[in-house]
């Protein structure tokens, strides 16, 4: 389910910029580590996560302004943006390693709920909490995008940036806002995961990022509810792979799904048909 939260971040940015944001995985780790930093300063866990959400969101905007906005202004080739995000991800990951050390650290639980019986299986209540929180967040995000004025502007920019700017929409602000939302969702995912598994480490973003990305592609990149379904499918198929093939195959499932989806139906489950302009 957390893959869904990460996938949303990818979807948001890809939808608007047509850019695969490779730094998103490290944003997720960044969010978790910042939260841990505040916890280390004896701040309440909830407050720590809230602070980290804000900081990560701002960091997203900063990255966009510093690294990506100049590229857009120059109208450079798409691969330039891709490489830039890879560079950004390098920087974030290594800075995290330098500041916090590369070891795995414990992270306090948000709430201690114990185990719950659900349809005859015992599930850690925290996982249900992650699920519920993710759903609520998706609901809020959907509301923001479909009902608010900024959301309207986002959808307009997604369809046609030039036309949107002619209609008086500040395209750069919308893009920054998108990066803010992406950062926020990454930090929430990071905080939730960290408190569920009680672990954080600087490199946690890499695999999670790639898997979240697979989930985004599966659901149809650029579509929010697609991300939820994609995240669920990736998560469930990983669990299935562990049961049927052994734990070694866990990490490969996401990529198998990714490649299959791209070959069979590149637009994903909920993706819109892209019209090839000639």
């Amino acid at each position, binding site marked *: 389910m957390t893959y869904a939260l990460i996938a949303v971040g990818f979807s948001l940015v890809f939808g608007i910029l*047509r850019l*695969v944001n490779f730094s998103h995985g490290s944003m997720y780790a960044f969010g978790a580590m910042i939260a841990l930093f505040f916890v280390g300063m004896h701040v309440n866990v909830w407050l720590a996560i809230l602070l980290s959400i804000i900081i990560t969101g701002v960091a997203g905007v900063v990255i966009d302004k510093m*690294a990506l906005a*100049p*590229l857009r202004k*120059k109208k*450079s*080739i*798409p*691969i*330039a*943006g*891709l*490489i*830039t995000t*890879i*560079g*950004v*991800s*390098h*920087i974030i990951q*290594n*800075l995290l*390693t*330098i500041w916090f050390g590369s070891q795995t650290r414990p992270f306090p639980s948000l709430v201690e709920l114990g185990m719950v019986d659900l349809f005859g299986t015992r599930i850690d209540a925290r996982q249900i909490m992650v699920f519920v929180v993710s759903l609520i967040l998706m609901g809020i995000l959907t509301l923001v995008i479909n009902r608010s004025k900024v959301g309207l502007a986002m959808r307009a920019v997604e369809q046609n940036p030039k036309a949107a700017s002619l209609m008086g929409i500040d395209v750069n602000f919308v893009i920054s806002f998108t990066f803010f939302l992406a950062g926020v969702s990454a930090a929430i995912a990071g905080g939730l995961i960290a408190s569920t598994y009680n672990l954080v480490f600087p490199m946690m973003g*890499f695999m999670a990022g*790639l898997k979240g*990305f*697979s989930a985004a*592609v599966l659901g149809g990149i650029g579509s929010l509810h697609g991300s939820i379904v994609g995240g669920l499918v990736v998560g469930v198929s990983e669990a299935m792979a562990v049961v049927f093939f052994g734990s*070694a*195959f866990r*990490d*490969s499932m996401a*990529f*198998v799904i*990714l*490649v299959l989806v*791209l*070959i069979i139906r*590149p637009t994903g489950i909920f993706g819109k048909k892209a019209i090839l302009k*000639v």
Partner: protein
Amino acid sequence: MKMKMEPFNRDFITPIEQFLTKFRIPAWVLLGVFLLALPHFGFNTFIMRLFIMIGIFSMLGLGLNILMGYTGLVSLGHAGFFAIGAYTSALLMVHTDLPFLVTLIAAAITSGVVGGILGLPTLRLSGNYLTIVTLGFGEIVRMVIMNWRSVTNGVLGVRSPRPVMFGMEFTFANHGFYYTMLVLLLLTGLTSAAILHSRTGRAFLAIKEDEIAATMMGIRITRYKILAFTISATITGVAGGFYASLMPHIDHDVFTFDVSVLIVSIVIVGGMGTMRGMFLGAIILIAFPEVSRFLMEYRFVVYGLLLILMMRFRPQGILGWKSRLPYNLPKLVQKRVETGVQ
């Protein structure tokens, strides 16, 4: 920005290019003698190993360049081909008595075939999506290596013996590795140049510039794209096979996504679609972590910054200018063009 760059290029680079073309033969001979004499300057093994790594990554760069620079298809999974080449060669050397040359060819063929198969999805995909497929491919190769224990020995990796050629074992001491690297690099370079100046190379360039126009000119773009994938993977496989012989031990951890990114970075930093750029890119990016040791753990931060700044200020690569010298068509074609005879 771009307008400012152009006059700089015209005034500064064209004379150098003309000069180099005029004195082409002495320049090549000089370079050849220098490279042949390099091991005898008394560098230690560490430096020699660095030179060899630069050579290997130049090959990888040349391989990816055919795909990325000429045909315009971006691959983030070349570590996968690199791994396939390395494992094919290493496993053949361990389990059979085949000579090194044969295992190297086998590595090239295996990698090339897989490349061709991976090229098939290009029938349906383009741009970003293709890049993503190659990324997934790279990771899947790594997972297969980790999990196919009966063949690849899983996470433990493979110990490969030192290669023997003409009754001589390759070591660092007798510079066998260095000279093998030179020969392979020369072969890859010549192949690249030959492809670029052939009908195939022109087809690749046409596809990169405009797929629809290329189709209109009668170029079967699907076929050429698969061909580009195959050639690129073959070259990468050779580099992998040689790498396996160089390292006493290879495992899945060598062929990560970071390696794919490194190869892409070499192509981009050097200058996409140029051969000269691959060598410079490899020198810069392979030597960088070594010469910047004084930066301690900050060097990968600087590496990230380097990539961002490159993209910001010179996205076409350090040596990525367009040559203003006339393109030399093959004599036969030239004659046809001039006389208008079909």
